[in-house]
């Protein structure tokens, strides 16, 4: 069903689709799509999201005691949690994820996090991205090391990050690219004009420092433009424009991933989780952050369509927050947190992890949720089951990782 406008658009585009783009074999779409069939999306919440109010242990009497004003109410009450399993409840602002929970495509791993006890945002984020907690000398990020062990050839868009910066997690030997958030990432560039493009190509080709980064940008841009135009033709379903921010980016990302089979890894970082004061309960600051996050994840899952079955989405944050609320209706820096896993291959509808309760004797240093599951165990399980990494490959991505004996069976198969 193609209307006249779309037909014209397609005819106008055909020219650009067949232009050869140099040495890179990016145009050979399809050859490698089996290697990149299984996708991974990592969403990182920078600033230490309060996991105890994301998946709240309302069934533990200590919870309400530790959080008299910010604690979430029990299910069924005003502003109460959405019951998950009779003990844990989901923040009401995440109602958009409830269908995925019910379809068993969403799971949580509670009391997970880094074995390193730092309460510095910046060190903890660094460890979460390098995949080597406690070791600062690691140069590359674990997602980049993952790229180096995955089978198949790597095109410039095999791994993409949404946003103006290249995150630590994707830094390293394998090429990766970043796209501006929102529609700007798929807009025409000044370098698309042949004379200008060729002038800058000449200058950058011979630059020792910047040639490869420049070329990665050029190649990725062409690929993404192709994928996004393809979508405009196909998706007359377009849908209503989404609110700005993460839901919007998630919609774009879903389209790109659906249209460009070579995109295998995607990364998005979201800030604003450092709620030291007035974080609110069912409503308020944290709720206002969680709502678009939930909407964005639901949009991503939906927008991926059949690709969602081959996708795992992991949501993680550098550490959790104090079990006890502080003097200002907020929480300070803590330790254990909750990790979220969504996707077709998830044995969802369940909260996993070794949960020990919030009694005074259970808290880490008398204040925080202890870490009973190393974040690397979760990521390794995804890499092993979903991306089919061998033990040896796993050791390259997560060197020095202690072998986990815990039965973390949150993946099907």
């Amino acid at each position, binding site marked *: 069903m193609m209307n006249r406008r779309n037909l014209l658009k397609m005819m106008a585009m055909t020219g650009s689709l067949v232009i050869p783009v140099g040495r890179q074999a990016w145009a050979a779409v399809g050859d490698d799509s089996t290697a990149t069939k299984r996708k991974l999306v990592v969403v990182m919440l920078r600033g230490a999201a309060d996991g105890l109010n994301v998946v709240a242990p309302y069934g533990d009497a200590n919870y309400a005691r530790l959080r008299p004003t910010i604690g979430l109410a029990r299910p069924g009450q005003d502003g109460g949690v959405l019951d998950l399993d009779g003990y844990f409840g989901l923040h009401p602002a995440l109602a958009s994820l409830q269908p995925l929970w019910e379809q068993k495509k969403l799971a949580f791993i509670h009391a997970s996090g880094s074995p390193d006890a730092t309460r510095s945002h910046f060190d903890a984020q660094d460890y979460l991205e390098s995949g080597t907690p406690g070791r600062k000398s690691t140069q590359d990020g674990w997602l980049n090391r993952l790229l180096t062990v995955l089978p198949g050839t790597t095109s410039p868009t095999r791994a993409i990050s949404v946003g*103006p910066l290249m995150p630590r997690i994707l830094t390293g030997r394998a090429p990766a690219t970043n796209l501006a958030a929102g529609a700007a990432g798929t807009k025409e560039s000044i370098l698309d004009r042949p004379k*200008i493009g060729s*002038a800058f190509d000449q200058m950058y080709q011979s630059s020792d420092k910047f040639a490869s*980064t420049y070329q990665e940008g050029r190649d990725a841009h062409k690929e993404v433009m192709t994928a996004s135009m393809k979508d405009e033709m196909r998706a007359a379903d377009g849908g209503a424009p989404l609110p700005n921010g993460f839901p919007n980016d998630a919609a774009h990302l879903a389209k790109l991933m659906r249209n460009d089979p070579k995109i295998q890894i995607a990364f998005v970082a979201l800030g604003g989780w450092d709620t030291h004061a007035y974080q609110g309960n069912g409503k308020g600051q944290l709720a206002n952050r969680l709502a678009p996050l939930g909407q964005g994840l639901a949009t991503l899952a939906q927008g991926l369509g059949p690709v969602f079955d081959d996708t795992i989405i992991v949501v993680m944050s550098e550490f959790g927050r104090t079990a006890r609320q502080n003097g200002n209706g907020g929480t300070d820096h803590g330790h254990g947190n909750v990790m979220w896993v969504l996707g077709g291959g998830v044995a969802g509808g369940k909260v996993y992890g070794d949960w020990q309760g919030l009694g005074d004797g259970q808290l880490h240093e008398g204040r925080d949720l202890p870490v009973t599951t190393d974040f690397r165990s979760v990521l390794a399980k995804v890499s092993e089951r979903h991306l089919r990494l061998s033990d040896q490959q796993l050791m390259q991505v997560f060197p020095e990782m202690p072998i986990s004996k815990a039965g973390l069976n949150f993946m099907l198969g």
Partner: protein
Amino acid sequence: MKLPIRLAAFAILSISAWATTAAPLSGDQQALHVLDRLGYGPKPGDIERVKQMGIDRYIDAQLEPETIPLPAALTQRLSMLETSNESAGEVLAEFLAVRKVANDGDEAAKQKRREVVGKIVEQNAEARLARAIDSPRQLEEVMVDFWFNHFNVFAGKGLDRALVGSYERDAIRPYVLGSFRDLLGATAKHPAMLFYLDNWLSTSADYQPPQLRRNAAQGQKAKATGLNENYARELMELHTLGVDGGYSQKDVTELARMLTGWTFEPRDLVRNNHTFRFDAQRHDMGDKEWLGHHIGAQGQGEGEFALDVLAMHPSTAHHLSYELAQYFVQDNPSPELVERLSKRYLATNGNIREVLRTLFHSPEFMASANVGAKFKTPYQFVISAARASQAPITNVRPLLGVLNQLGMPLYGAQTPDGYKNTQAAWLNPDALTRRITFATALAAGRLPLNKMPGNDDKAAGAPAVAAQPLDAVMLLNTLGPAISGKTRATIDNNPQALRAAMVLGSPDFMQR
């Protein structure tokens, strides 16, 4: 992104070898280097001026900015920016007035709020950018950027939208080359920092707020009933000791207790411009054990003592020296240089000017391997392009726009660690394309830089007054050895109309 790692390793290996064997820098290269590092790059004629003056004299003059007169045009322009000449209390009053009215929902009130907040944002930005581009006290402007970033506050958080201008003017700018202890104290007591890192709310655990206060701003305060460790942690981790500076979680909590009562009253700030208040009622009077010191109850003196200890701590000396060396020399500064700067810091009681003097006269600073070794941050890139092109700029919006696109919005770093200044942080595929796009638009005269941002918002985006395209020959003369022979040859092989864009979008101009 393959490059950073390889390059970092390469740079470390090469310094010791090159520093001794490489040919000494030419006069032009030295002049360019100090203009690129002590400032935001050359304006037309600057390289010649610095050569005539002599490199050492130029450095010494930059270290004494009060000896360098400001051009009348700049002074005149700054004097016309209402907001930047108002007190913190006055700006906050305007801000709160429109916020309160707009909350009632009237469309006219919302429009008024947009205007008032827009004016505050725009004038703060204009003051900062006009100085960075046009002040001959370039090092002062570089240090304002450096220290603001070190003591970052985020303008997007509540009241800080109104307070950030005063923060920079009153708590940062006067101290950028002075005593670190003074700078530390000024930031600790400024309402922008007290608000941003929540210390204004932090109280002793048993504090009972007075019940009968109804004022909206104080309504928030009335909820303050216990400790908040946000500021205390970042004070040690980011502002002073550094994350590995040797403190524990207990030290964080104890320092937070020592700083209870360091606050401000929004109403008192609006009415009387009282920017800081020590509230003894909120202060935790108990004994504390902090960093090996036993602290008895001394009220505000406890916090002052903490700042004294932190300012002169060897970990702080090391942390600041590393940051300065990384900013001014290269991304992985040598431990020897950092050690030398640390010693100087401790020997001069934390005198920033003297530490910088040592740095600028160090062999590492002038080593040829370190020339051009820094990848410009988006801010440095934009300001240096504006300086080199000498485009008349009455409208800073296009510059603010490109800073947003490049991921470095002015006053927009959300987290207290501010922005990084390394190549690994800023070099990425999208960034290069966007920098080239900006360079091309600037060179073609397509940015509406010389149009007064007016009352007519619809026209603001249109390039109403056609600016002159830039002249590539003029740019190349201005930048001298910044643009290599190889790059010049490629530029010469391309059409005249593209050459200026190629200069400002060249790989050479990405670095300093």
